[in-house]
Structures are given as structure tokens and as C-alpha cells.
């Protein structure tokens, strides 16, 4: 009964792959949008390598954010870090009022143009959702469960690794997905500071007033974000199911 949605996703994925590898096949779709014989398909770089660069930036930043945010989340929920817990919550709340673009823009004068400011902005902004979800995942583990684990003679370390983290995993994964989705968007804007990525196509379209570029860049980024978010969501569901919990 789940065949319908799966087929749709597969079709979208195939369409995306064909488009980024052989974009000329689709030139006829975009030609009506061009004026003055402007090229219908982005011609200043291969869409495929731009997509790879985009994904590379997003996932390396997400990996770094995950490591740091989960470590911090574990720290502030241990007895030795509890003093920081209340403040961490406020900080996450305040941090989320910063627009990602502001973080990106402020990083530029500090580290220069190119990949670096984008990576920094993605890393910093990506910390917030993961940290927030690690906190809520770890603090929502029931005290009864923890008592039981203690009663079984588990050390604090084993309780963390064998009980708390597995129980918090679906929520932490949701944070990682949020962070990746936000990063996909911020990385697109990163092209305004000369980071390699799919934003280039949209920016080039805006600069040369070429609607065809804008639309194809927008569609590729949108499709990519929807498919990745979808894939990560099924990982979350899988983790939740393994726990025997209903997906939340």
C-alpha cells in the first residue's frame, strides 16, 4: 500500500539525476523563458559537479555540527554540566532568532570570500536544531527507565550509551534533518559569497535576467531538499521502529 509514494520518490530522483547529468535534454522546456537567444541551460559549469559541491559543503558542515552539538547536549545533561542546562536552552532560543544569512554575511569579512564563510555559517547555524533536539531527546528519557538501568547495575557511561542515547536517537535524527534542510538553503545563498554550489545557477540567472537559469536552479535545489529531507525522515522512522515506538 506504500508503493504509490515510493514510486513518486523514485520518479523524482530519476528525473533529478537525468537533469543534472544531461540537462540539454530538457532545453526545450526552458527555451520559452529566455529572451534574446540567451542560453536555456546553465553553461558556466556542470550541474552535476555543482550538485556534488553543494552536497559536500552541506554534509561536511552537518557532520561537524552533529559531533559538537551532540557532545554539548550530552555534557549539559550530565550532573557536572547541569548548571549550563537552563542557559543552553535560552541560548538556543536566542540563537534561532539570528537569520542564517546574517551569520553568513558576518563570517565573510572575518575569513574572506569562498567556501570558508559558508562552511562556518552552516556549521554554526546547524548546531542549534541538533543541540536543541539532543537536549529534548535526552531530558525526555523517563526517570523510571533510568532508575531501572541503575538498578541493573549499569554504570553512568553504559546508561548513556545503551539506554539514553538509543532512546533519544529518533529525536536527535530529527534535529539533524532540520539542520541539513536549513543548510541546503543557506548553502544556496552561499553562492553570493562565491562558494561553489547550486546557488550559482540562480544567482547567474538573477544577474543576467535569465528566467530559465533561475527556474532550473530553483527546481534542482527544491527537488534535492525535498528528496533528502524525505530520505532522512525514513531513517528517523526506521530508528523509531527499531525502538518499538510509534513514530512521533
Amino acid at each position, binding site marked *: 500500500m506504500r508503493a504509490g509514494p515510493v514510486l513518486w520518490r523514485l520518479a523524482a530522483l530519476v528525473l533529478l539525476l537525468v537533469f543534472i547529468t544531461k540537462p540539454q535534454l530538457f532545453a526545450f522546456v526552458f527555451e520559452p523563458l529566455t529572451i534574446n537567444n540567451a542560453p536555456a541551460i546553465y553553461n558556466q559549469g556542470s550541474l552535476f559537479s555543482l550538485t556534488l559541491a553543494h552536497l559536500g559543503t552541506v554534509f561536511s558542515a552537518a557532520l561537524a555540527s552533529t559531533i559538537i552539538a551532540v557532545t554539548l547536549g550530552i555534557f549539559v545533561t550530565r550532573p557536572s554540566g547541569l548548571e549550563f542546562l537552563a542557559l543552553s536552552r535560552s541560548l538556543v532560543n536566542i540563537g534561532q532568532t539570528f537569520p542564517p*544569512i546574517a551569520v553568513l554575511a*558576518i563570517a565573510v569579512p572575518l575569513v574572506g570570500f569562498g567556501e570558508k564563510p559558508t562552511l562556518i555559517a552552516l556549521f554554526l547555524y546547524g548546531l542549534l536544531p541538533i543541540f536543541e533536539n539532543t537536549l529534548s531527546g535526552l531530558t525526555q528519557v523517563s526517570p523510571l527507565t533510568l532508575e531501572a538501568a541503575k538498578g541493573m547495575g549499569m554504570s553512568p557511561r553504559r546508561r548513556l550509551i545503551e539506554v539514553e542515547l538509543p532512546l533519544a536517537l529518533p529525536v536527535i535524527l530529527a534535529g539533524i534533518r532540520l539542520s541539513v534542510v536549513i543548510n541546503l538553503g543557506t548553502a544556496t545563498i552561499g553562492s553570493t559569497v562565491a562558494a561553489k554550489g547550486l546557488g550559482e545557477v540562480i544567482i547567474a540567472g*538573477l544577474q543576467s535576467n535569465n528566467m530559465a537559469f533561475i527556474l532550473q536552479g530553483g527546481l534542482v535545489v527544491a527537488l534535492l531538499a525535498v528528496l533528502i529531507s524525505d530520505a532522512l525522515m525514513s531513517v528517523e522512522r526506521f530508528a523509531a521502529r527499531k525502538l518499538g515506538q510509534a513514530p512521533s
Partner: protein
Amino acid sequence: MNAISPHTSAPRVASAGAAVSLDRLGGVVAVLIGVALFVAPFVTYRANRIVAGEARMLLDALPMAMAVGVMSVALGVALVAATIRQPILRLSAAALGLAVIFLAVGRAPGFVTPPGNTFARVSPAFGFWLLTLAFALLVADSITRLRLGPFARLAALAVAAAAMAMLLLSGAWDGLSLLKEYATRADSFWREARQHLFLALGSLAAATLVGLPLGMVCYRVPRIKTAILQVLNIIQTIPSIALFGILMVPLSILSAKVPLAAALGIHGIGAAPAFVALFLYSLLPVVANTVVGLEQVPASVVDAARGMGLSKRQRLFQVELPLAFPIILTGIRIVLVQNLGLATVAALIGGGGFGTFVFQGIGQTAIDLVLLGAIPTVALSFMAAVILDAAIDLARGPSRD
């Protein structure tokens, strides 16, 4: 967010070893203050707007007496942070620290710049921001520990905003590069501010008008609910600039084909695609929270209302919606903060707003111009978050907290 139990456990754990150990958070704050004072530069001096700056330490940035004054106040705050646990004292110390460095940094340009030089730019540097961060951490921590009620939080926000406004109006900061960027763009600053608010609040209003009824329909008809929420979820996933781009095409066709649309100012490039995109992004939180809010109204309450002879319509407006209101308001808070941030991207497609300064600043590598766009955006989002959090607490009423 305010009634979370760890607040109560934190002081207890801390006090167990209080006799000997320092306050850890206060310790971190004290270290930050130390680094900011003795290692990091207080201001940056640049011969003109674009060139690389030279760092000035606190002692070289202010007249001797004032520098020593700032230093002793900051060290005093560090001492309070590390040794005193009483939140009110910590809050007062941090507020005093903020006031002192904010006033002091305004004096730096007059001291650092050679007389008669009008091209030179002085901006707060890493040390200043680090001090601000340290004091702000202390303020945030004390306010969290005090567990202020909604009115007290609103009052604190009003006092902070009034103090900031007085500082800016008094001209104490006029020598700083940020304010010089503002002075040359005062007109466009307020125009972009209006545009930013129009984009963020207008799209929120439109989304509320459409999203509330849509949420009520979804609540009544579960089959539509799944479909609508799925579509809105997908839209929410699309990065802003991509959605702007996708919307530009139909809107530009619309404005070319329908003269009325063009006359109304709807164009492929400009504010229209940004407004529509923000509207679409706003729908998910409004609709989803309306549904969740209505669903969590206890069935017994609805039954009681039915027993009292209320019609379906009366039940919805007099019982279900009022009970769902705090959750709906939470959705609106999410939308407002999100929109105020996303509206910055609108500048990229000619939609205006504070993003205009951010992107101009990136183009000219002028960090103060970036800040001229970024700081008001962050301030607006922050104020919106505090105000709506207070409103949500008030809507929940005292019984629930």
C-alpha cells in the same frame, strides 16, 4: 519553555559543592571577560571604510582614566559572576557592565581618530563583542534563574529597548562606523525597514487569514488534513531562494499577461515573489498548530458544551478555538521569527528589506554595512520572540503554568 523541571534541579546540584567550588557558568563568563580585556582588541581603526583595520587594545582605545574605569567594572562583574549566586545581583552587575562598555565604545572614535580626519572608521572589535557576549550570557542566565513572569519579561524588554533607543538618539555612538553607514543611508534605512516589516507581517497576516480556516477544515475532515499537511511540509522544505526563483516565473508571466496584476505592482522580480513565498512558508506552522490545538481540546469538554446545548458553531467559537488559542499562538510565534529572518533573503530578488544592506555589504566587503542590515533583523526577531512568548504564557493563563 519556562516550566521545565531542570531549572529546579540545577541550583540543588550546584549547592551541594557550593562551599568550595566556584559557579561554573560564572567561571566561564569570568574567563571570557579576562580574554576580552587582556587579549582581544577593543576597537578596530581603519583609515577609510574599506581597507583592513588595525586593532586597538582597550588601553589604546580610550582615554587612560576611562579605560581603567571600564577595566575595573568588567573585572568587578567577572568577580560577581564567579562568586555570587544571587541572580538579582548578577543581573544588576551584568546590566551595569553592558551600560559601561556601550557608553565607553562611543567615546573611542573621538580618542582614536586624529582630529579633522573624516574618512577614518572606528568599529567595535572582537574584545567588545566578547564582553557583550559575556555580560549578555550573565543577563540571560540570571533572567532564566529568576523565572520572571510574562509581564516582568515584557517590562525588562521595554527597559532594554528604551535604553538602547536613548543611547542611539543621544548621539553617543555617532562616531562609530555603523552609525556613519546609517547616516549616509538614513532615508533608505527606514524605507527598507518598512518594507521588511511589510514582507514579514503582511505575509503572516495573510497566512493567518487563510491558515486558520484551513486548519479548522483539516480538523473536521481528516482525509484532507494528511494531504494538505504533506503539501505544506514539502513547501517548507524548499530553500527560500529556490522558492523565490520558482515563483518568479509564474508571477512574471502573470504580470505580462494581465495588465491589472502589473498595475497592482505584481512583477516577477521584486517584492511579489518574496511575499508569496513567505506566505506559503507561514501556512504550515499556522495550519498544523491550529489542527493540533483543536485536537488537544479534551473530548469531555466538548461533550459538556454539547450537553449545555451549544451548537456546532458555538462550540467551535466559544469552546474549542479559545482552548486551542495558546497553541495557535505558538505557531504564529514560529512564523513571525522565521519570516523576519527569511525576509532578508528577499533583497536578493529585488524585494527590499534589511537584506538590501546585508547583500550590499557583502558586495563591498563592508562589514559595518552588513551589520546595519543584520543587527536590526536580529533585534526585531528577538523582540518578536520575547513578546510572543509572553503572550503565549498569558494566553495559557496562570492555572497551566
